[in-house]
């Protein structure tokens, strides 16, 4: 937050949160227990992911103690304010099995799909989109995906090997997409159906009627691609429908009053932190306003190109080439980058924690999966990997634990997340990464 005046960016939001907490008006929207919307529907549990590149520095990253109230090693020192809101899983493996270990790739792909990618192949459907199929269609956006890196290529979310889920990379356009002219404030006094939306929807239906005849003009593989496009059009149709329906009021929803301004787009850690904070706040408020129930944030890519001003190597190159500091015994700059990443993870969790919802906070009703691509940064190993889970998923999760996964697959955490999100599948992943047991240490 160093140079960033939050009020300049999200004045309405910050101000609004305070007002919401203070007013007894809340009671109007909630049931007697304050845990559900007045209409009787429970607070929906939403799912998010957060990703960063290049793991950590061994013992500086992995606590010695397990269970609750564990020690926070140097690289996790920033976690203190959120330690009790997060579960930390360490000492996990991303098993490549018969596939090659693809640097910077196999690790995060297994963490998010349970499947080691074959040579030359992209990821299969990632966990966020599996969950979005189940819970994403009730909202304006099936999912929201953003990257703080200012690079439109940096995403950890894939529909399939050839369809990355393109992230929003500019805080300004992210704001406009979420809270621009198409945003319907659920708490607005007035609601009028826009006749242009009715007309648009009608033309769109006409185009979708052509699906069958168009499919017949292409081969099987291309049919899948066109089908995916028509799925996108159906999402658009649902979006139009929602704009023609008066939304239910949501007390936690306080849309930001101003668009982000003067956003630096360079690769310095400082600018990255700022962009990440802006986009995290926009994203969290979009979740609070029930614009989406699935969200993804990329803090840094696996080949992270973040720079420390004055130091000549970007993060990824640094992990390869920086000498181990003779006195400290580790790569000082590589560790610097990891520490900054962890600070932004804390920022991310805190923006959800800062938005009140029901009798708690938004964080109580989300589950956020945090992943990276390697275990030990310097060797790019895919053993000793860490995964995070933040939030209590509507009370189903007890948080604040450090769990040693004893060399089991990182996919165990993904499987646990799927079960918590209500995706009923007997197992997840393939070969050595196939997981069929939830990690019971964190179940409430």
């Amino acid at each position: 937050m160093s140079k960033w005046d939050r009020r300049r960016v999200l004045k309405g939001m910050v101000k609004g949160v305070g007002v919401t907490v203070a007013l007894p008006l809340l009671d109007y929207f909630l049931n007697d227990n304050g845990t559900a919307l007045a209409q009787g529907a429970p607070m929906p549990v939403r799912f998010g992911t957060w990703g960063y590149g290049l793991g950590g520095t061994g013992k500086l990253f992995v606590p010695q103690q397990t269970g609750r109230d564990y020690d926070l090693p140097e690289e996790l020192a920033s976690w203190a304010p959120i330690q009790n809101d997060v579960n930390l899983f360490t000492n996990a493996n991303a098993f490549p099995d018969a596939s090659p270990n693809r640097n910077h790739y196999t690790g995060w792909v297994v963490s998010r799909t349970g499947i080691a990618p074959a040579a030359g192949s992209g990821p299969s459907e990632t966990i966020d989109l599996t969950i979005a199929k189940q819970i994403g269609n009730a909202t304006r956006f099936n999912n929201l995906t953003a990257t703080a890196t200012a690079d439109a290529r940096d995403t950890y979310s894939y529909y399939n090997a050839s369809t990355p889920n393109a992230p929003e990379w500019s805080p300004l356009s992210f704001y406009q997409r979420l809270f621009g002219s198409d945003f319907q404030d659920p708490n607005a006094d007035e609601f009028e159906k826009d006749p242009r939306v009715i007309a648009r929807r009608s033309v769109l239906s006409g185009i979708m009627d052509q699906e069958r005849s168009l499919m017949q003009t292409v081969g099987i593989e291309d049919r899948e691609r066109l089908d995916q496009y028509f799925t996108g059009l159906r999402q658009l149709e649902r979006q139009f429908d929602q704009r023609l329906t008066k939304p239910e009021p949501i007390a936690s929803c306080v849309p930001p009053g101003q668009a982000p301004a003067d956003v630096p787009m360079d690769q310095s850690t400082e600018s990255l932190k700022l962009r990440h904070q802006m986009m995290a706040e926009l994203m969290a408020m979009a979740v609070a306003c029930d614009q989406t129930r699935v969200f993804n944030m990329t803090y840094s890519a696996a080949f992270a190109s973040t720079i420390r001003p004055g130091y000549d190597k970007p993060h990824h190159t640094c992990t390869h080439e920086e000498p181990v500091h003779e006195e400290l015994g580790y790569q000082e700059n590589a560790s610097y980058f990891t520490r900054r990443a962890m600070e932004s993870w804390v920022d991310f969790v805190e923006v959800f924690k800062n938005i009140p919802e029901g009798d708690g906070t938004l964080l109580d009703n989300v589950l956020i999966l945090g992943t990276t691509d390697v275990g030990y940064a310097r060797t790019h190993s895919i053993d000793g990997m860490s995964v995070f889970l933040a939030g209590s998923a509507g009370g189903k999760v007890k948080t604040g634990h450090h769990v040693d996964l004893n060399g089991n697959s990182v996919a165990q955490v993904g499987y646990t997340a799927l079960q918590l999100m209500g995706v009923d599948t007997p197992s997840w992943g393939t070969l050595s990464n196939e997981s069929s047991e939830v990690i019971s240490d964190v179940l409430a």
Partner: protein
Amino acid sequence: MQQYEQCSGGTFRVFATGMLALCALVACSPSDPNPEPEIAGTQALTKLITAEQYSNSLAYIFGPGIDAEVQFAPVAREEGLLANSLATAGVSGGQVQTIQSLAASVASQVMDVENRQYLIGCRPENVAGPDQTCATQFVSRVGRLLFRRALTDEEIATYVDYASDAAVELDGTESAGEELDGFYAGLEVVLEGLLLHPEVLFIIESAEPEPDNPEQLRLDAYSLASRLSFFLWNASPDDELLAAAESGDLQSPGGIERAVDRMLESPRLIDGMRAFFDDMLVFDEFKTLAKDPTIYPEFTSVTAQDAREQTLRTIIDHTLAQGKDYRELFTSRSTFMSPALAILYGVPALPGWTPYTFAEDSPRAGLLTQVSFLAGTSHPGRSSVTLRGMALREQFLCQKVPEPPPGIDFSVLTNPDADYPTQRERVAVHLETPSCAGCHRITDTIGLSLEQFDGAGAYRITENGATIDATGSLDGFEFDGAIGLGEALSQNPELPRCLVRRVYSYATGGPPGNDARPALSYFNEEFAAQGYQLRNLLRTIALSKAFSLIQSLIAEETL
């Protein structure tokens, strides 16, 4: 094969009419010393249009005043080109929403009070309600250009009905504080729908039997027009090309030659070739290229954009305006200069872009010494001999440098870094370690000869106080410095062959398979015979059977 051997060998022994008929079948002429070999052709593809192609097509239809800038999801680079993966790339739901926003913006600009009188092409009898005649005229004209084919009567009637219904519903309603005119508001909604139609976003190629040889498939006329137009202009076919497809002229004798020659003479060829070289030279990286300002304060985002522009201007001028030998791009001292670049190059600055020739004693000549290559293949804070060597091999010689093997003990690399003054000593460890040396030997010796240019592309003769040794080698050629590297590259037989390979795969939409070897050999020979001129290469490829024939096996499935 026999057929064209006969053709080239027995020129004067057959009657002229018989000769012409035979040659028409095998695409050669009596004087053609190097006829095209028979090949199976490529596949009929369904390609995702790129954001630039989409914008360029809209600029042709509605004029350059319409703002249609958009970014689509990045696609993967496959065998050196982004264009190679457009036939497999999908579109996510979020992307569809982005396209819808753009479609709404473009439709609203077209129907704007200021623009409508020029862009609609007709006036309704009454702006307050439906006008079937004018709406039909607009939908059929614009729909044909957007869909790259004539719309059917049924399609036109459907869209005109939507426009009419919406005209009634929307007349007099308010948008952004202004009262809408029904006719234009109705047409706007329909145009928005057309702009996000799958047939606009996907270029769906289809095949038909060749009339004289029904077992062989070829692109149908509309698909051929699209393949030509996206190849040469990076945009949809224009009215004239679609007309040639509709009348049958495009596939009649001499028809494709007329169309291709017109396209090669059009200024739009520059847009097309800029897009090709943008892709081949990995200039998509320039959208995010930045340098550490504390190390290279003179390198700004303007420098990065100008560096890309300088190289594209140099290439277009050299290959298309001057019609020079492609290989000389790597030794030529002629370029263009902008004020932001002049600072880095250390030369006098004039306003705007001006032609510039490096002096004979300058350390710079050719594309490899331009800032785009030097800075684009460096780290934010320093040069990289490995990245430079790798880029040269991958971009200009079509060679694949393998990724580092997994599980490397990187600690062997950590020791020398801080203590040795120049890159030569620092990277020496690459060559001493067997698991690294295999690949680094083919990259680092190239990059070391460019070490007299720092990570921003500025000239230097020392690093950390030590004089830089810029000796290097490339495939048996040894030299001292960048000038020698450029000369060695220009003489490398793989240089023109790589361009041929890239142009052909760019033109047809996918990496060439083994069955394309005869065609590639033919293109290589023609390229050499015609003095390595780009325009001739484009013509040879565009007119070849390898460009327009479709492989039966795959195509049958799509029919």
